[in-house]
Every structure is written in C-alpha cells, then in structure tokens.
C-alpha cells in the first residue's frame, strides 16, 4: 500500500500526468471566473476547436517522439482546407473524390518529407520547412490568391452537435483517433520502434529496426492527419481561407511539449498531448472570454507556456 502511494506520487511528478493537474486547476478557474462556461453551446464549441488541433497534434507527437519536428503541419492544414472546399463545391456528391485526393496529397507530402530526411540527408527541421514553403506555393498557385469553394451539407453536419449533447462529429473522429494513436504508441511494434529511434537512432538501427521505414510512416501519418484536419475545417469555416492553418505549427508543438513529450525524443506520448491540446485551446478561449486585447492575449499565452516549462524543469532537476 505504502509503495503504491509512492508510485502514484512519483507518476504525478511526470510532466505527462502533471499537466492534467494544471488542466484541472485551469478548468476550475475558468468555470468560476466566467458564468456560462459549462453551457452546452460553449463546451461543444470548445471541444470542436480542440478536435482540429488534437488531430494535427497526433502527427506532431509522433514527429517529436522521433526527436524531430514537423513544421509543414500548418500549411498542410491550409492545403487540406483549400483543396477540400474547392473540390466539394457545396455538394456531398464530391465527397468521395475529395477524400481520395486529400488522402493522396497527404501521403505525397509525408513521403516527400521522409525522402528528404532519409535519402537527401536533410535535417528534419529544414526539410519540413522547405516542404512547408513548397505546399504554400502549391496552394497559392492553385487558388491564385483567392480561394473559392464551399462546404457540403455532410461536412457541415460533422461540426454541429447532435441533439442536446455537446458531442460533434469532429469530436467523435478525434476521440477514435486518440484511442488508435495511444494504442499504436503503447502497444504495437511500430510504436515501440518510434520510441527506440527517438531515444537513440544508432542503437535502434543496430538492433535491426528499419529506421527509414519508421521515418516514412511517421511523416506520412503526420501529413495525412494534418491534411484531414484541414479538410474537416471546411465544415467549420464554410469556405476556405489561406491563413486557416497559420497558428497550427506553434500550437501543435506547444501542445506536445506542454504534454510532457521531450523535444529530444524518445519520451512522452499522446496521453500528455491530449491534455496539452485542451490546455492550449482553453487558454485561448478563456483569454477571449475575459475580453483581453490581442496584444495581452499573446503576452499571457506565451508567458504561461514559459511558466509551465519552468515548473517541469524544476521537476527534472529533482531527479
């Protein structure tokens, strides 16, 4: 019994669990500070916003677990949004076509990243940055700077909550992906291999792991999930915007790191990211509710992330 309590205490010290305590504290503060926080419409909106970031953050978690980073997430989301809206053109009949094209585009982007990193030996940071610029070029040329297109009834219905609940289709998709992501990370050989490669690339290679394959799969997962997050955003925005993805690089990286995944790779997981995502979304939402100007919102948001990092660091120092 004694050891069990100690074990729990020890675990709570880990960032990926500690972040849930912070999340709980923040939630309590938000509920007390703003009346109507728990209202159905608000909670539904909050979870919906979290879903888009959460889906994109799955790929980012994989990339950071490898010890890398994926900077092409933001523009991939925008590409998904633009492609989606322009192919759908307001009709459900085009859904299948849009799905296939989006999936192919995602695989292409991910494979491109994997190729650059493994065969051209480019640093992931710079490769995904370059890829990000290429994607931006593609959607700029595709739209000629003026995106068109319209959501279809089905896509819009995914963003509406059913009946009286707070659950939206997008949220359900996220939850399914969360379960799959956590299962893949914890229980499958592939997941284990990602951790191994992230912890020590050379050791992983010499123990017989096909590192090239791991890299390709991780970047394809990241690109495909990001582009689908952008596709789902079509239902939310109604049409497409060229800056719809802009914040997603910073926010997904912040969510993953706040969630306790180490930037050096090999430690962490999606369970922490889940809380990181909720924390980021609640922070932005709360600062909007209390009506702070954009300037103040940015200062506080950045400041809070720094404070969280300092809290984690104190933890690490005590080990």
């Amino acid at each position, binding site marked *: 019994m004694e050891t069990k309590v100690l074990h729990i205490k020890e675990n709570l010290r880990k960032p990926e669990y500690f972040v849930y305590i912070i999340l709980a504290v923040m939630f309590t503060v938000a509920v007390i500070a703003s009346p109507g926080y728990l209202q159905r419409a608000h909670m539904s909106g909050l979870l919906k916003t979290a879903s888009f970031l959460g889906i994109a953050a799955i790929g980012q978690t994989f990339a950071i677990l490898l010890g890398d*980073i994926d*900077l092409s997430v933001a523009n991939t989301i925008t590409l998904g949004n633009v492609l989606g809206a322009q192919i759908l053109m307001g009709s459900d009949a085009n859904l299948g076509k849009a799905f296939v094209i989006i999936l192919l585009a995602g695989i292409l982007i991910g494979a491109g990243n994997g190729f*650059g990193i493994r065969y*051209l*030996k*480019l*640093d992931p*940071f*710079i*490769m995904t*940055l*370059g*890829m*990000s*610029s*290429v*994607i*931006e*070029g*593609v959607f*700029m*040329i595709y739209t*000629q*700077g003026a995106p068109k297109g319209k959501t279809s009834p089905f896509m819009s219905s995914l963003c509406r909550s059913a009946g009286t609940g707070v659950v939206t289709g997008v949220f359900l998709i996220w939850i399914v992906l969360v379960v799959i992501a956590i299962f893949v990370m914890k229980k499958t050989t592939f997941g284990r291999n990602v951790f191994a490669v992230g912890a020590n690339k050379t050791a992983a290679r010499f123990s017989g792991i096909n590192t090239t394959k791991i890299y390709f799969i991780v970047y394809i997962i990241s690109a495909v999930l990001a582009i689908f997050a952008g596709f789902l955003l079509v239902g939310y925005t109604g049409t497409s915007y060229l800056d719809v993805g802009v914040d997603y690089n*910073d926010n997904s*990286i*912040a969510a993953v*790191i706040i969630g306790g995944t180490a*930037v*050096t790779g090999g430690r962490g997981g999606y369970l922490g990211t889940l809380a990181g995502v909720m924390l980021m979304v609640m922070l932005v939402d709360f600062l909007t509710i209390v009506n702070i*100007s*954009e*300037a*103040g*919102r*940015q*200062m*506080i*948001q*950045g*400041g809070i*992330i*720094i404070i969280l*990092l*300092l809290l984690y*660091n104190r933890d690490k120092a005590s080990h």
Partner: protein
Amino acid sequence: MTKVLKLMKEEKFKYKYSGVIMAYLFLVLFMVFIGMFDDSFFTGRNLSNVIYTAFPLVMVSFGQTICLLTHGIDISLGMILSLSNCVCIVLMKPDEPLGWVTGVAAALVTGMVCGLINGILIGRFRLAALIVTLSMSTVYGGIALYLLPMPGGSIHKGFAKFLRGKLCGIPVVFFLLLIVLVIVRAVLNQTPLGRKIRAVGGNYAAAYATGIDAVRTKIIAHMLAGLLSAVGGVFLAAYMYSGDPTIGSSYSLRAIASSIIGGAVFSGAVGDVLGTLAGVVILTLINNMLNLLGISSYFQFLLQGIIIIAALALGSLKNVNR
C-alpha cells in the same frame, strides 16, 4: 597558388569551409542563371534593391547563426525585430534634430534585453531553446502589438535619409553590412568569446569541464543575436518610414534556412557568417528573379521551398556515406 591548393586539400580546411564554399558555388550559379535570362539583373539599381531587401534578413541571420553555433536556436528573433521596430518608431521624435537617438538606442537595448531573457531561460534554466523561443516569440509579438496596434508612426527624416542614402553610388547600408560582417566574423572566429561559443555548441559537457562559463556564453550569444535583430528592426523602420508589429514574423524561419544553406549545422559549433550571407542573398534573389522575369509572385513560395531543399541536398550529397 600551389600553397592555396594545398591548403584547400587539407582535411581541416574542408571540414571548416565546405558548407561556405558550397553556398557560394550555388550563389554564383544562381546569379549566372538569372543574369542569362535578364539583362537588368546586373544593374546598379537592381543590385542596391537586393541589398536593401536583404539587409534586415542578413542581420537576423547572423544572429541566428550565432545561436546555432551554441547548439541552440532562436525562433523569436523575427519578433524581436518587430518589437525593436515598434520601440524605435514609438520613441522616435521626428521633429527634433537629434530625435532619432532615443528611438534607436531604445530599440537596440530592447533587442539585447529580449536576447538576455531568452539566454537566461535557455542557459540558466536549461529549457529547450526551440519551445522557449517559440513561446517568447508570442510574448514579444504581443508587446509589439500593444505598443503599436496598427502599422504606422513616423520616422526622423534625416535618419531615414541617411540609411537610404548612397555613398559613391553605393548604398550606405552596404558599408554598414560589411562593417557588421567584419565585426561578427572577427568575434566568432578570432576572439576567445567566439571559441567559447563554438566550444559550448560542440560539446557542452567538455566545455563546462574545461572551465568555460557555459551559461554565460549562451546568454551572451543570445544577447548578440537580439542586438543584431534589433539593428534589422531599426533599419526597417527607416526604410519603410513607419513601424509594423507583424513585420518580423517570417524572418525567424528564413534566417534559419539561410544559416543552414550557408553551412551552419543544427548540432552546433560549425558555421560561418560568411556562408550565412550567401544563404541570405540566395533567398533574396528568388524574389528578385521572379520580379525581373515577370513570373507571378505565387510561384515565390514554391521556388523558395525547392531551392532551399535543392541547395542543401547538393551540399549533403557528398556526405551520403557518412
């Protein structure tokens, strides 16, 4: 001549300068390519345009190279540029004869203070540079937005005229760029501080064990980077005659790209600002080329991405067997 050739064959020389040489090789090829397609490329007017456009990015990239040398990174440099740009405009007194002094001084101090904060968080508290500077970037951007909610303000006319002026037909900024290049390069390659920066970046534990104050070195490196970015911010204030709180948002990542194209590496210690300069010019020429050739600016991003990847792939191909 034979002496030079012999020197170039030495392993140490290759290791130190291969990145820089590749960058200049690529730059020359690129310039010849543009020159072939367009006669107006090698005109004084166009080249001074290139210098004006490149100058702020050169400053930020030099700063970024210093951070990369310490095995760090600074994603907030772009927003430090924005912030110092706004500080400069807000404190500028356009009507007094020496009204530019307070604005410029405050902007430079702002840059150094921002660098100091980054340096302390990264050096003293050992936080991951990437995420710290990412978050601080938001903070600096917020402060800039608070100081100057809308792009605008006015600049001291005499000061702007000086920075936009020409000396013997060559932009004053070009000389300024050379001076900064010489100073930064001397600091990084010839002084104890430069050696300390490289030592800390190459092997933190070993540098610490040798008695180098690693924390202080990192802080100084980030302060230098902040100061250089502030110089870029001040120049942009003079060049655009106004301030803009979001002007720096794209600089950080482009600065990283140009540093890496110029031969710096993410693992620290290796890199030279001379190469970084070539990297910046390559990136700047992409837009210039599109303008000259009359290609839609929508191709700018596509080409930028492809060229970044191509330039680096070229450099790393010979190392495939490592």
